[in-house]
């Protein structure tokens, strides 16, 4: 056993640090540090910078612009970019539909879409969840009926992140009703500008327009937009979700949040004139969460270092549960550290970056919105209750 990073890994880390320092927009990093929301342009600009440096699609096959990074190097990249308050890479193209197209798409689909995904020429969104099909995704009802060279799509998707920015959607549709639900689902690609597509915003607890409902009313898409085989979409979706698990514990993000928490707790003074970080209750919580984070970081590295662990569903679910729990606790502690100033709503500043003087310290405005927004971590991508069901099934049938 040797828990040291190799010299190559350390050199890699340094390269990424220099990249963050020199090339990622300071304004964007500041927004992230304060818990303020990014504009579409901020996200696009960051992606272009990644692309220019060959970091846009590191998880892809090399023929499509990917890298030969090891799992540990992927983790280093995530850790360092998080530590430098860089945005998280937009997942829908790079981590979701991109790998699916490389594994199951036609050559034409690969050549048409992959370079555009890599450059973020197209912004993709994910059409999986439906109003009646959240945790029970296989019950989805949005139908696609073949009509000559086209499919005609009718139905509704929901919780579609950034559909308002999207040029393209990958979605699951029902193409067969006469079989087990999982066996009648297809994976399709859809141009969001097609007639019959309507996007309706859903505003989240923090006031942020992040997710949407998307309605399909006789939307006609070319039959060539089917990925792989008809009725095999469930397999591709499972492949996608397995791919998405990379980095699901969000260790880098958590580490950065812990540092931020320490900073705030060092600046805040309690009623007795002492620093909050020296308060007996608060310092205990800080110590506890540091231990939780340390254990989770090592679990994550154990998974990354061993292919056997990577295919073990008990580990995948654990990383999701523990990672979401930890990040939620951290944003709650940040809100508590900020204290009563966090009770003041400053949406103009946090959501829209308006330059009014902030009320209270500059870190106050983003604290409660980040806490509220992070409640989603234990709900989306398979709720923590669903994850526990998966883990128990894997444990008890092993």
């Amino acid at each position, binding site marked *: 056993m040797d828990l040291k990073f190799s010299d190559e890994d350390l050199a890699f880390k340094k390269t990424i640090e220099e990249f963050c320092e020199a090339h990622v927009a300071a304004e964007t990093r500041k927004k992230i540090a304060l818990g303020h929301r990014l504009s579409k342009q901020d996200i696009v600009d960051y992606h272009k910078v990644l692309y220019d440096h060959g970091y846009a699609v590191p998880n892809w096959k090399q023929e499509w612009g990917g890298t030969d990074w090891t799992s540990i190097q992927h983790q280093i990249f995530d850790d360092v970019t998080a530590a430098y308050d860089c945005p998280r890479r937009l997942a829908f193209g790079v981590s979701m539909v991109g790998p699916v197209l490389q594994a199951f798409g036609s050559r034409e689909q690969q050549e048409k879409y992959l370079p555009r995904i890599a450059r973020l020429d197209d912004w993709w969104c994910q059409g999986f969840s439906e109003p009646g099909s959240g945790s029970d995704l296989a019950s989805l009802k949005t139908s696609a009926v073949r009509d000559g060279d086209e499919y005609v799509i009718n139905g509704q998707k929901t919780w579609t992140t950034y559909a308002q920015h999207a040029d393209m959607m990958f979605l699951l549709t029902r193409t067969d009703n006469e079989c087990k639900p999982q066996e009648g689902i297809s994976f399709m690609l859809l141009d969001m500008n097609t007639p019959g597509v309507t996007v309706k915003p859903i505003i989240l607890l923090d006031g942020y327009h992040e997710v949407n409902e998307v309605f399909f009313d006789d939307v006609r898409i070319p039959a060539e937009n089917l990925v792989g085989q008809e009725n095999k979409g469930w397999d591709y979706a499972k492949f996608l979700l397995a791919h998405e698990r990379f980095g699901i514990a969000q260790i880098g993000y958590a580490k950065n949040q812990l540092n931020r928490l320490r900073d705030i707790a060092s600046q805040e003074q309690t*009623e007795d004139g002492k620093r909050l970080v020296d308060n007996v*209750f608060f310092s205990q919580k800080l110590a506890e969460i540091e231990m939780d984070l340390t254990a989770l970081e090592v679990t994550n590295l154990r998974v990354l270092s061993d292919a056997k662990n990577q295919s073990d569903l008990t580990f995948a679910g654990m990383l999701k549960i523990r990672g979401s729990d930890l990040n939620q606790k951290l944003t709650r502690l940040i809100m508590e550290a900020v204290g009563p*100033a966090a*009770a*003041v709503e400053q949406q103009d500043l946090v959501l829209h970056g308006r330059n009014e003087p902030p009320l209270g310290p500059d870190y106050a405005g983003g604290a409660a919105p980040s*806490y509220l927004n992070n*409640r989603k971590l234990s709900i989306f991508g398979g*709720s923590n209750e669903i994850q*526990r*069901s998966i883990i128990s099934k894997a444990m008890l049938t092993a």
Partner: protein
Amino acid sequence: MDFSLSEEQRMLQETVGRFVADRYSLDQRKAYMAQSAGHDHAVAGELVDLGLTLVQIPEEQGGLGGDAFDAMVVGEALGPGLVLEPVMDVMTAVSALSGGRDDILEDGNSHTLGLYERGQRYSLNPAITSVEGGKVSGTKTLVPHTAGTTHALVSAQENGQVGLYRVALSDAAVTVFNYPLQDGRPFADLQLDGAEAEKVDGISMAEIEAAVARMTIAECSVAVGAMQAALDMTKEYLSVRKQFGRPLAAFQELQFRLVDMNMEVQDARSMAIWAANQANLTTGEALLRAASMAKAKIGKAATYVAEDSIQLHGGMGMTLDYGIGAFAKYLITFNLLHGDVDYHMGRVMRLGG
């Protein structure tokens, strides 16, 4: 021992319950919040007309002569409405700090309270507001502010003594910065640049601390009412929402979660009853300690209920419009005002048993 409500208390409960049902549906509340004042002036007037702000004022001063149990009954009934007006603040603290003056008590909602300062967290000690020659300067934060308010009672230092001063908000030396809280309630910061300050006689730090303790205990009952409403909504959602071909309520994991939430709510209610009793019986440090025990326990329960009711609603719980989020945001904000769990835990320990 008798935990049942008196006839008068039942009437009070019904009156407030009817007001909430008629005037404070979540949709109505949203419409009030959208108004420029952040609440509805006419609805605030109705609250005053119901006499709620006078509950704890002695009968000889024109009040209802009620005690902390009466305040509790009103608070718990107001909770499901997430009422935007600072009813409990006025009912408990303003009346306790009026120094018996009728001009402060009449109108019911003419006076608000400026007791906190930026950067001082939960401290009631006025560190940056002071009075010299009858003029007050400094800033006050987290001031419950409604458009009908004409005056603020602000704490300040004068010659090394803490006192309470009456300031007219119309004074040119007073600047009001309005903002909503995370849960939508309209609050404000006050900047005082030598405003005319009229001292309220007989109020020192001890009276201020006691008044805030009484207000905190009353606010705990509002939280209990809001928690109960969040629990009821969650129970309803689990019964209606189906996944995997059956209602969510059929999944044992979720049943147990509902049970845990119910136990938190019942614990919180018991704590609020106990604290109201203490408010009737005790003063001084015993009162402060009782308020801290209640606020720490109920603040913790409020966070639990807020987080788990969102979780059990799944994606719907994340939306601004669905409703459970409004309760969750109130409960989270409740914990951030008048001392959070850690602050009150510290005071419970410091003041001994």
